């Protein structure tokens, strides 16, 4: 069966030959207009006057528009309608689009866009967490607070109280393909090609901007050169600008951001400050904990509310926190509007609790891994719950998985909750969702063994004792990541499947391909449904004319949602075919099997192509839509209570690093990862997501540093100054394995989502770096993120008790 095969990416051949087409590669009609934005040069200001005469006079310029020229809605916000395409009376960050240039060439547009003369009355700019708090500049009025139990009382009664603060930097997506869109005038409307994770939203915003219903706008999206969340909402402005110009001039219009413009204009991962106060017992068990999360959301709301929600939803990561209070401050600042980025707040929330684990272990002189284990959620008392029992084969596999070699210390089960009828029930998250599928006891035990964790940690301690300059560190950190959009209505998907009379299959679904191999996985699902080779299935560009009202390809949901929708469509067609063929052969539909490219009907057998032809001749519809809505979800975000997630994806990583205590330079030496993809739809693609996610997560927490100056200008706006991991930054030894188990929920072939969770495996690098810093002295190193050489050196100094202390000791 095509499902579970490690097939290459469906576009692999096109990628390696350069034949894969991205928006910027599409052949253009000769009369195409090229667009560029003129940008704000101040972080906060009132526009006093605009002199755009030099822009208009610039060579090749066809039109220059300001907000006043817009015919309909001036809005590209994905949420709160607070993000105009072009600034009106005020500007809110350095880089905000103020005017729009249409010119005969890309270069002419870029040149002209720099010639605007805008006079501002500068206003105080709020750039930092502290400034935002002082000015009470925030979204949602006040902080969002969720609590369970009585955190204050539990902390007060605890034998030890550990408190601290962690600053966590943001992250630029650095998709290799910058933002791009192309609008082609069409009869009665417009056709838009956009590099976007969310074609339906592009369609919606374009329709509003040109004053037409959504049925007048068709958005086509073949592939993106990377998205990572950065093309969920940030492409709206380009597509809307192109559509406006196409409508106004009846000419195709294209816009692509130069890399520097892209980094200056678009939002990034939210940077966070997290304050924590934990009451713990002598074994490091957390009895009560309080978090305060502060996020710099930038100037507009964009997706910041759900991002900050997800940070709260991952403040527990893998740990049962009975008494907890989480306070979340969504701060409005005069910077780029922070947006979705792989993990969507989850990584920041998770890093907060992982820092607490390391801090507790350091303060109490305990093994950090033992502290983590002692706080883990209890394993589900009944591993063969109802969900797994429904699928005998998968259930058996799950049992195999949990019966693998166990931990050195038996998993702690004592605190499993007792339900009303007396049977032990699962523990619940701080937001009251039962954790029914917890596998991290067994998973981490296995990883400890395969990575030779304990022996290596001892060897590292010996090595460190002998080294005056270099220190190594090793850490194991777990991941538990909630799968589903927390805005429940987004958890739906549609598909359209055609079987042609020659037996070839064509399908569309609502998901977009950004490199993650979604189309390949979905094609494998369709091929499995009809029992054909995956090559018999073609998937063309995502198209709002084929599948309407889609959600963004985000929240790791692509395969879960679209795979199920496609399967539903295929099952419908297959049932119609089976019924017809059964009738032809005087048997029942249940006796029709689709296998290995053949169709078996009672005693007869034919090729799938022949079966399709017979059905066509029998006037059977061979086309169907499919639809899927994730079950079991119910979530009250105001109360912080319910079941926002269908299930959790798990994983764990061991990272080993080395630091230079003279300069803070650091290196990942080795990574060992064991990750849970359920019953993988495609192990090769899943391993690719894990390797790439780990390195991207490690980059976020090490070398990737965003720096704004005091006037609010982003100083790291190009790859010359913003450094994503390069080839030599990957770990030399890089072992990735998939956990062998099925999803206990009825997902597509019992697989699990894989897009975001592996990014958080990179937290093990940060924890290992902190361990290496801690090896330099008795004090808590309090490493900040990102752990640049400068941050590591500062942590080394703190571990030693400050430079002055060290000098005194040496004297």
């Amino acid at each position: 069966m095509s499902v579970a095969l490690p097939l290459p990416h469906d576009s692999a051949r096109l990628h390696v030959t350069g034949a894969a087409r991205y928006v910027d590669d599409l052949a253009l009609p000769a009369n195409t207009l090229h667009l560029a934005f003129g940008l704000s040069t101040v972080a906060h200001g009132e526009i006093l006057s605009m002199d755009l005469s030099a822009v208009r006079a610039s060579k090749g310029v066809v039109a220059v528009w300001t907000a006043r020229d817009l015919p309909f809605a001036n809005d590209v916000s994905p949420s709160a309608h607070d993000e105009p395409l072009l600034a009106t009376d005020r500007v809110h960050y350095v880089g905000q689009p103020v005017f729009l240039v249409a010119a005969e060439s890309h270069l002419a547009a870029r040149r002209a866009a720099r010639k605007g003369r805008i006079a501002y009355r500068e206003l105080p700019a709020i750039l930092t967490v502290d400034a935002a708090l002082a000015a009470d500049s925030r979204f949602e009025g006040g902080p969002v607070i969720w609590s369970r139990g009585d955190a204050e009382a539990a902390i007060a009664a605890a034998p030890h109280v550990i408190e601290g603060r962690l600053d966590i930097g943001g992250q630029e997506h650095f998709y290799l393909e910058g933002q791009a869109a192309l609008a082609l005038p069409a009869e009665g409307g417009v056709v838009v090609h956009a590099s976007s994770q969310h074609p339906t939203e592009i369609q919606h915003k374009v329709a509003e901007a040109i004053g037409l219903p959504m049925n007048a706008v068709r958005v086509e999206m073949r592939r993106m050169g990377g998205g990572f969340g950065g093309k969920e909402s940030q492409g709206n402005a380009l597509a809307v600008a192109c559509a406006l110009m196409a409508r106004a001039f009846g000419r195709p219009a294209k816009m692509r951001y130069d890399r520097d413009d892209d980094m200056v204009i678009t939002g990034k991962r939210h940077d966070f400050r997290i304050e924590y106060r934990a009451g713990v017992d002598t074994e490091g068990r957390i009895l009560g904990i309080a978090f305060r999360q502060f996020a710099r959301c930038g100037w507009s709301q964009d997706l910041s509310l759900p991002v900050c929600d997800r940070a709260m939803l991952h403040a527990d990561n893998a740990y049962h926190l009975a008494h907890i209070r989480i306070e979340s401050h969504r701060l409005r600042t005069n910077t780029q509007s922070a947006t979705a980025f792989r993990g969507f707040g989850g990584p920041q929330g998770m890093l907060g609790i992982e820092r607490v684990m390391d801090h507790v272990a350091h303060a109490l002189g305990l093994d950090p891994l033992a502290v983590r284990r002692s706080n883990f959620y209890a394993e589900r008392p009944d591993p063969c719950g109802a969900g797994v029992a429904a699928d005998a084969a998968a259930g058996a596999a799950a049992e195999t998985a949990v019966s693998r070699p166990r931990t050195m210390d038996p998993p702690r089960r004592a605190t499993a909750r007792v339900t009303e009828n007396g049977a032990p029930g699962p523990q619940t998250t701080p937001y009251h969702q039962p954790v029914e599928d917890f596998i991290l006891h067994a998973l981490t035990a296995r990883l400890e063994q395969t990575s030779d964790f304990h022996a290596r940690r001892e060897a590292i301690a010996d090595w460190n004792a002998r080294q005056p300059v270099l220190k190594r560190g090793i850490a194991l950190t777990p991941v538990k990541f909630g799968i589903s959009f927390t805005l429940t209505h987004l958890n739906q998907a549609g598909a359209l499947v055609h079987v042609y009379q020659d037996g070839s299959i064509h399908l569309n679904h609502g998901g977009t391909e950004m490199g993650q191999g979604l189309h390949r996985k979905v094609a494998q699902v369709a091929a499995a449904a009809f029992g054909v080779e995956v090559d018999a299935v073609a998937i063309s560009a995502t198209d709002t004319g084929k599948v309407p009202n889609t959600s963004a390809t985000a929240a790791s949901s692509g395969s879960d949602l679209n795979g199920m929708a496609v399967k539903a469509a295929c099952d419908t067609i297959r049932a119609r075919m089976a019924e017809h063929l059964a009738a032809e052969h005087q048997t029942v539909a249940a006796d029709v099997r689709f296998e290995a490219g053949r169709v078996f009907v009672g005693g007869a057998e034919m090729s799938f192509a022949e079966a399709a032809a017979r059905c066509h001749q029998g006037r059977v519809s061979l086309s169907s839509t499919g639809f899927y809505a994730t079950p079991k979800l119910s979530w009250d975000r105001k109360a912080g209570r319910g079941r926002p997630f269908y299930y959790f994806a798990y994983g764990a990583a061991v990272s080993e690093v080395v630091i230079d205590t003279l300069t803070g330079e650091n290196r990942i030496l080795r990574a060992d990862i064991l990750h849970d993809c359920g019953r993988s739809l495609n192990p090769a693609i899943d391993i690719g997501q894990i390797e790439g996610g780990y390195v991207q997560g490690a980059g976020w927490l090490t070398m990737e540093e965003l720096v704004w100056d005091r006037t609010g200008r982003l100083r790291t706006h190009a790859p010359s100054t913003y450094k994503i991991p390069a080839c030599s930054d990957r770990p030399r030894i890089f072992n990735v394995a998939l956990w062998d188990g099925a999803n206990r929920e009825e997902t597509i072939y019992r697989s699990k989502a894989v897009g975001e969770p592996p990014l958080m495996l990179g937290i093990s690098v940060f924890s290992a770096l902190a361990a290496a810093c801690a090896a330099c002295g008795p004090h808590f190193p309090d490493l900040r993120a990102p752990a640049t050489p400068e941050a590591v050196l500062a942590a080394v100094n703190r571990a030693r008790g400050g430079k002055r202390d060290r000098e005194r000791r040496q004297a």
Partner: protein
Amino acid sequence: MAEIGFILNGSPVRVSVTSPTQTLLDWLRTERGLTGTKEGCNEGDCGACTVMVTDADGTRVLNACLLFLPQIHGRAVRTVEGLTGPAGEMHPLQQAMIAHHASQCGFCTPGFVMSLAAAQINGRTDHDDLLAGNLCRCTGYAPIIRAAEAVAGTPAPDWVKDAPAECGPAPFAPTSADELAAWYESHPDAVLIAGATDVGLWVTKHLRDLPEVAFLHACRDLQRIEAVPEGFRIGAGVTIAALRAAMAGPHPAFAGLLRRFASEQVRAAATLGGNIANGSPIGDAAPALIAMGARLGLRKGDVRREIALEDFFLDYGRQDRAKGEFVAWVTLPAEAPGLACYKLSKRFDQDISAVCGCFNMTLEGSIITSARIAFGGMAGVPKRARAVEAALEGRPFTREVIEAAVPALAVDFTPIDDMRASARYRLEAAGNMLVRYLLERTGAKVDVLEVTP
């Protein structure tokens, strides 16, 4: 308007060049429809536009975004579209990339394929170095390396091997130092373009209209490395790649620093003369050369002069170079066994130094008889640490002496805060580099790059 000729994917082409600063990337994509070569950053950092270029010196990879059309006159250019065989067969490397799942979004992939295809032609397998200029955001690089290792050691297919074209003299390009000197003296406001890895950005990022330009790549006599009584005389047109190869034997520490100089693509284009002449406070060649006691040769017309390299850098953005005068050569000693070069940046490969410290001490017994120390990133120019040198010379080479000299750094330098590092960190790390120098010379392990798991 001038015409240039070159070979593109095996076929000769002639192109009318209307602007000498049109990039090869723009031309390939907009005028030839060869869209396999991608624009990722338009500044030579991401490698998505990597193409293979062959000339008399062999095959190398270059960033097409920082390559002006006149620079490829007489050379052979191969893009990803030209990797496919005559019968439509894929290059074995392309097959390996598919088999090892080495592409995800695919946007960086053509660049990687080109870098690895060129490496195969040149028999190179130092993948980390040769791929440092190709960024991938999806894969974490592991599968790309697996693909590279799968083809390592196999011969390159014949169809990707190019020979340079015979196209006559290049436009906008003098063919000797004499010709250049005469022309530049009479066109002192012109911009000289060697590798275009810096001037390229004036065009692609600053959108500047350049005045008259002259390309230096045809001045073969500026590309020589000669043995002279003082040591070596390096022509200003020698590329960083060629310099690195030449220095591996006599000056391994310098060669080691050059390994981390930008990327394979940039080193193949950038020249020593360009790195010095642009006067950058963070150019990596200058501190090492200053520590070695290198001298700089300048020429205006027929007048030549040689000065200590450190004297060339007057102030931020200001050099001791007259109008119409150009950097012509660098003289450096045959050996400098005490030289160590420490480059500090957020990323090891292809990053700009926050601090680049170069140390060259001579010991007699335990006494430091001479100390030449220079830093990049610590001032508006690459600069010697004379106060530190004075605090060291004549004293024993001990931890106490070194640590006592560290505070003198604050006399020599008042570094700034910027996006690469804070002033405080720069000073502290620079001082610690002195300690590292001592520890390294006395046998301690000090390089994280040499630690294996």
